[in-house]
């Protein structure tokens, strides 16, 4: 009885939200129609200007108008396409209470119990374990926000929540090759999902999402399955396996081979940010092994600086100056 009451309440909420969504769709059509109308008016104005320019042989002016028409035509076809997408609807009527109720009953048959959060006004289902190419991602919750339904054309009204997350090594927010920050990139399912929501086919909606989750598209993942177990280089973000990873002992972070090196003096592995290049021999050195020349203040390794704290050039310069000084003193004597 309690369950039945819950389904009735949910059906009413969803129906109400679908009415708002329909109104939002009609408003969007209205806006697009206004844009479309403006474009038509612009084209009509340009036609008159173009006719006048050609008749009066204002060739440069005519060419400039032609160029504007060309640009506007591109915009025009874009607007027309969007307009067509929104105005085309299937031969179905708005679902009624009985349809929505039947959808919810079917969803429970397909997915098990429907979870309803009255405070957040969300409904969720749980998928089984998702396994792609032998990598398990655990089950996912598909949480649909009833209040967000009317924003279908500007936002995604649902979240994909990893219930036993196995995120990509390099990026904790990627919990599935096609899910990042709880948002699914719908790919080929985009239009079918939008249609299912618009027509109140909620069971189809959840089924379509599940179908995307259980499919891997190697051409366009957030993180590919080949790189899933790896970690990401702190500097360039490249995914690296355990064997390719280098740990910088100075900043305590992991780097790829391209973004790390080792100190030629103490052999410690360091990242490029924690190392410097010796001004003398041009070899990388860590900050602990770096010495600054007292004269020129450049960084040198211990092999390129003497016990007086001078580099080879500054030492030579000092010797030269000292020699000149002693020569002058000798001459004066």
């Amino acid at each position, binding site marked *: 009885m309690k369950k039945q009451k819950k389904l009735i309440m949910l059906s009413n909420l969803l129906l109400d939200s679908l009415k708002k969504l329909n109104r939002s769709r009609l408003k969007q059509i209205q806006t697009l129609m206004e844009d479309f109308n403006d474009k038509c008016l612009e084209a009509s104005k340009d036609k008159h200007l173009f006719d006048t320019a050609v008749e009066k042989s204002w060739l440069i002016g005519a060419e400039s108008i032609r160029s504007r028409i060309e640009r506007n035509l591109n915009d025009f076809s874009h607007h027309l396409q969007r307009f067509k997408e929104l105005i085309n609807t*299937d*031969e*179905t009527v708005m679902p009624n209470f009985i349809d929505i109720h*039947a959808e919810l*009953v*079917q969803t429970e*048959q397909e997915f098990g119990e429907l979870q309803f959060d009255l405070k957040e006004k969300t409904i969720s289902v749980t998928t089984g374990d998702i396994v792609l190419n032998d990598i398990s991602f655990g089950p996912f919750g598909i949480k649909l926000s009833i209040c967000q339904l009317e924003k279908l054309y500007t936002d995604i009204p649902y979240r994909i929540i990893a219930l036993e997350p196995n995120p990509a090594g390099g990026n904790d927010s990627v919990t599935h*090759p*096609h899910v*990042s920050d709880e948002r*699914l*990139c*719908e*790919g*080929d*399912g985009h*239009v*079918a999902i939008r*249609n*299912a929501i618009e*027509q109140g*086919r909620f*069971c*189809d909606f959840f*089924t*379509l999402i599940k*179908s*995307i*989750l*259980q*499919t891997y*598209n190697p*051409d*366009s*993942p*957030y993180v590919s399955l080949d790189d899933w177990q790896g970690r990401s280089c702190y500097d360039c973000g490249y995914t690296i396996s355990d064997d390719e990873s280098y740990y910088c002992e100075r900043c305590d972070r992991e780097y790829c081979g391209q973004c790390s090196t080792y100190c030629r003096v103490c052999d410690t592995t360091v990242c490029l940010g924690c190392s410097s290049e010796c001004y003398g021999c041009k070899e990388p050195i860590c900050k602990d092994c770096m010495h600054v020349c007292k004269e020129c203040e450049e960084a040198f390794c211990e092999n390129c600086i003497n016990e007086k704290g001078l580099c080879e050039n500054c030492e030579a310069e000092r010797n030269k100056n000292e020699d000149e000084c002693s020569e002058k003193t000798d001459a004066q004597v």
Partner: protein
Amino acid sequence: MRILYVNNDGSGFADYVSITEGTTVEQFFTIKMEGREPSDYLIRVNRQPVPKDYVLQDGDRVTITPTKIEGASPVLA
């Protein structure tokens, strides 16, 4: 006779279609989804799973949903 056909493949659509009397759900699938494997789809009649030799009735609601759909990651402009 007419049935409501909900096709969630590709862009997806829902529409009333005419079929001849005695058409089974298997025959309907073969006509509408030529070259596809039924095992790659979730097929429901009036929201319920049915055997492949189920004979479609006037007013039935047939839903065909692929079990594999390729997602993507957004293409940055």
